[in-house]
């Protein structure tokens, strides 16, 4: 026993030490990240962010230089704070607060001390900087916008926050990242890759030389330029037309799915979100919960589609063979589908066939067609499944897959949806009859509606909408954008529907807003909408909706326009659609009267004030009124 004591202790010590070594070296291995090594300092070389152009090569976004004062708290030596604060234009309290903040983040990693100096501030500071050890100036580039347009498409860039730092190892505190729109979607393309030089330091933080003679250093990779499919002139014109209104315009090229304009109103100048004032301005825009300028209505606003939805119902009824071009019904100012169930109609009444059903927007005709589709099958459930499948093939009820980071699915109710609402087998075509006229449960975003119009224009297929045209002067090759998606409707069924939409302009609800020389197919719509005042559901003036494409024979543009609380579809949305089409196809406006009408839109300021005024008001041109503290008129209003 005595002989074994020391031997055993030696073995125990050896095992303990190897255990400790494996804890230090194997179980908690180094990250392999050179920037975590205190002995190595990384110096970054930032490439210039890529430029953004429109479809015609017009410059939308470029760069301007900006200078950040950086600090490495560990390296800071006692300094003349009074002079330093004066140079930086900050107070001593700011200095202390900021310094402690950066120290808490990390004593040895660089943090931004004062962001984004102007050129003038930089010039003064640059010479004196060497006096302040631990501080240095880092050049960065900020965005420069050639025109105050398309803020909702472009997005902006801002400093990475702690969440970004955790999520992406690429970024260091103080670096910039794209937020929203193109800047977010194509962040890596635009950003490029920063270069890095590693420098070996000793424990006194003195530079000894390049780390391993620069073996791990990298050169920066330039950010790539991007061409968008957006037509800058059309976009700006659309923003001008929207003026004081709220709503959205989505225009695209049906032959390629390229988005020509994506207007959201109200909008803002993208230059507001550049530089030191960005955070203040963004807060102001973001918290404007009434006009919601940062809410991209073209992509995010879900509205009931209203009458334009009738075109799809016509196509589905034709495909299912439950009607043909000549099927007719008599409209007696409405459609009776139950003992006390009646859907009103504004079409004027009389014999309706498919053609005048569309151009007069007859509710009764489509209620009948819709009912026949659902009732073709033995159960309403089966019918609804078929109906849903057709609608979804037009890209409704789900994300479209376009290349912008924001989106909404919209809503196409499924049989399951109605099972939940009414109970299994407890519902029939008549319960869901408002689908026939695009009201009720159905919800679409403007871009979905524009895409649906493009599919009609193409007579049966569409390309996924997108805003990217070229990266680094190479046309995009993404299958998702260059391969057409087929709808479930056969090509031959489109012609009668398109004829109906064409006649909307010739003889129907839009015949007074024709554009000379351009054949347009379109469809008006209105959508009821409600708000809450004092906890009470109150109806507001209907949204004005219009979808169109042109020219009818060889479509070059498909468009969807929403004007919130604009009332009749043709009054605002219809005019705007016509003007946009003319601008895009002709490059000039001949119907100045329409343009003047649209631009003279001060009445919207008053309209949007109504629900906030706390007073009684009327809606829909005075047809109905909301009386404060009394029950408002809640009877069903009906499309045109």
């Amino acid at each position, binding site marked *: 026993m005595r002989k074994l004591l020391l031997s055993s202790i030696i073995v125990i010590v050896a095992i*303990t030490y190897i255990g400790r070594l494996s804890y230090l070296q*194997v179980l908690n291995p180094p990250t392999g990240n050179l920037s975590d090594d205190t002995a190595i300092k990384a110096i970054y070389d930032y490439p210039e962010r890529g430029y953004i152009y429109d479809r015609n090569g017009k410059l939308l976004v470029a760069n301007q230089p900006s200078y950040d004062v950086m600090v490495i708290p560990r390296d800071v030596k006692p300094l003349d704070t009074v002079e330093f604060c004066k140079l930086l234009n900050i107070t001593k309290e700011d200095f202390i607060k900021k310094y402690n903040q950066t120290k808490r983040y990390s004593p040895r990693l660089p943090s931004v001390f004062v962001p984004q100096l102007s050129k003038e501030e930089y010039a003064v500071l640059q010479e004196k900087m060497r006096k302040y050890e631990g501080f240095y100036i880092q050049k960065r580039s900020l965005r420069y916008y050639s025109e105050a347009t398309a803020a909702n498409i472009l997005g902006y860039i801002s400093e990475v926050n702690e969440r970004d730092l955790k999520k992406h190892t690429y970024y260091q505190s103080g670096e910039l990242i794209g937020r929203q729109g193109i800047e977010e979607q194509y962040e890596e393309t635009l950003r490029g890759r920063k270069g890095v030089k590693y420098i070996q330091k000793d424990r006194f933080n003195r530079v000894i030389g390049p780390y391993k003679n620069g073996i791990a250093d990298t050169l920066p990779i330039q950010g790539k330029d991007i061409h968008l499919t957006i037509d800058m002139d059309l976009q700006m014109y659309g923003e001008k037309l929207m003026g004081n209104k709220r709503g959205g315009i989505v225009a695209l090229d049906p032959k390629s799915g390229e988005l020509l304009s994506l207007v959201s109103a109200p909008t803002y100048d993208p230059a507001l979100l550049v530089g030191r004032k960005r955070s203040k301005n963004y807060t102001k825009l973001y918290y404007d919960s009434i006009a919601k300028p940062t809410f991209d209505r073209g992509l995010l606003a879900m509205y009931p589609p209203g009458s334009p939805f009738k075109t799809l119902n016509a196509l589905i009824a034709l495909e299912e063979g439950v009607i043909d071009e000549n099927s007719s019904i008599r409209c007696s100012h409405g459609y009776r589908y139950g003992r006390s169930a009646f859907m009103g109609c504004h079409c004027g009444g009389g014999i309706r066939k498919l053609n005048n059903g569309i151009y007069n927007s007859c509710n009764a005709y489509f209620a009948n067609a819709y009912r026949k589709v659902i009732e073709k099958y033995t159960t309403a459930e089966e019918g609804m499944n078929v109906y849903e499948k057709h609608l979804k093939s037009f890209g409704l009820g789900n994300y479209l897959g376009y290349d912008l980071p924001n989106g909404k699915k919209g809503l196409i109710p499924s049989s399951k949806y109605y099972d939940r609402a009414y109970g299994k087998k407890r519902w029939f075509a008549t319960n869901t009859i408002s689908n026939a006229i695009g009201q009720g449960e159905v919800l679409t975003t403007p871009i979905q509606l524009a895409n649906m119009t493009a599919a009609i224009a193409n007579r049966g297929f569409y390309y996924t909408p997108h805003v990217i045209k070229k990266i680094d002067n190479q046309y995009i090759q993404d299958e998702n954008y260059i391969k057409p998606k087929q709808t479930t409707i056969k090509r031959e069924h489109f012609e009668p529907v398109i004829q109906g939409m064409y006649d909307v302009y010739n003889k129907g609800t839009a015949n007074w807003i024709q554009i000379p020389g351009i054949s347009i197919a379109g469809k008006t719509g209105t959508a009821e909408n409600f708000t809450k005042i004092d906890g009470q559901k109150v109806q507001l003036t209907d949204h004005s909706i219009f979808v169109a494409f042109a020219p009818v024979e060889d479509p070059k543009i498909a468009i969807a326009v929403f004007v919130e609380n604009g009332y009749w579809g043709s009054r605002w949305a219809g005019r705007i659609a016509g003007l946009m089409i003319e601008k895009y196809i002709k490059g000039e406006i001949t119907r100045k009267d329409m343009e003047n009408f649209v631009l003279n839109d001060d009445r919207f300021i008053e309209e949007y004030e109504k629900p906030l005024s706390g007073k009684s008001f009327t809606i829909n041109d005075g047809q109905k009124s909301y009386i404060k503290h009394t029950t408002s008129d809640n009877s069903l209003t009906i499309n045109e």
Partner: protein
Amino acid sequence: MNNKVIQKIDWATILVYFALVFIGWINIYSTTFTDQNPSVFNLAQPYGKQLLFIGLSLFLIILILSIEAKFYERFSSIIYLASLVSLLGLFLFGKNINGATSWYAFGGNTIQPSEFAKAATALALAKYLSDIQTNINKLKDQLKAFLIIIAPALLIIPQPDPGSALVYASLFFVLYREGLSPIYLFIGLIAILLFVATLIFSFKTVIISSFIILLFSFILKKRRNKRTSPLMFLVILVASAAFSYSVSFIYENVFEQRHRDRFSLWLRLEKDPEKLEEIRKTIGYNTYQSESAIGSGGFFGKGYLEGTRTKGDFVPEQHTDYIFSTVGEEWGFAGSALVVLLFSFLLLRLLFLAERQKSEFSRIYGYGVASILFIHFAINVGMVIGLLPTIGIPLPFFSYGGSGLWGFTILLFIFIKLDANRINEWM
């Protein structure tokens, strides 16, 4: 040296010795070379000097192996007394380097007698214990043996070099091997336990828990043997209470803050992150830097001469006491575990050789060699990897320094000579 000696020499030990010296040197080179002057024969640089020291130790080895084996036993008392005198002389002629008067200066060179006193003490202890008159179980002889061990330590402590003095405690392993009652070992172990427990918990907790433990063992014993008297248990309780209280008192009132910080870092007593950060920058700086350097090595290390912390001189004293951290950073787990295994092999081999000696003197001396080398290895590596508090003693054969290398070489090779001569004892 005749051929017989060369044949009987234990080549395994010698091989490990040279392996350790070689690995030590290349790591010293890595910590101290500069890109401007990488020549290995540069005598202005530690790695150049160490190469010279290694060359000189080859002569020492040949000299030690050539001397008659009996010489070491016969002259052990004289060698021991000479080394005591050399330690005493430091009080008069010693040169102060870094606050410790541990060196004699000869021109530009210095020599540290405490490095040689270890071998001398091991020889003297072996000589005394192997004497036929000596009975280790007699108190008087015990005290004499203790005196042999403690005398050099007492001379070294005021230099001050408490680390080197602590080394002599390892010779108690030798006494135990030779028949010292295990009660001493037991008391030592209990003392360490009480010491640590008092620091981690508190004086009161320790008293209460020892009371409970003793009460239980007394009751157990009483059941088996009705006549058990509680007196012994009471004595133990009072003794531990007194010990624990004095530890607590000394820690709070006699220790300076820097000492307290060392212990609180070692036992992870400090929980306040800001104070911990402060300790890391001051008293715990070495340990923190050396742990991070080792950790940053990963499994295979950063590669020879590629250690960024080694290059940046992040670990102070890296070529002397903290040389093991270079191994950790540049050679990773693979390299540092190999060094631990080499040392363990050497120590176990020495114990095996000691046990096969026919002569009592050789056996006891061999045991002493293993104990001294073991305590250096255990304390040094334990400190560098952050398991033990900072105690400044070198890693044998590895750390930079002529006296250290020669002291360990003499210590080891006297035993190799004795071992090679073990058959001749009977002739």
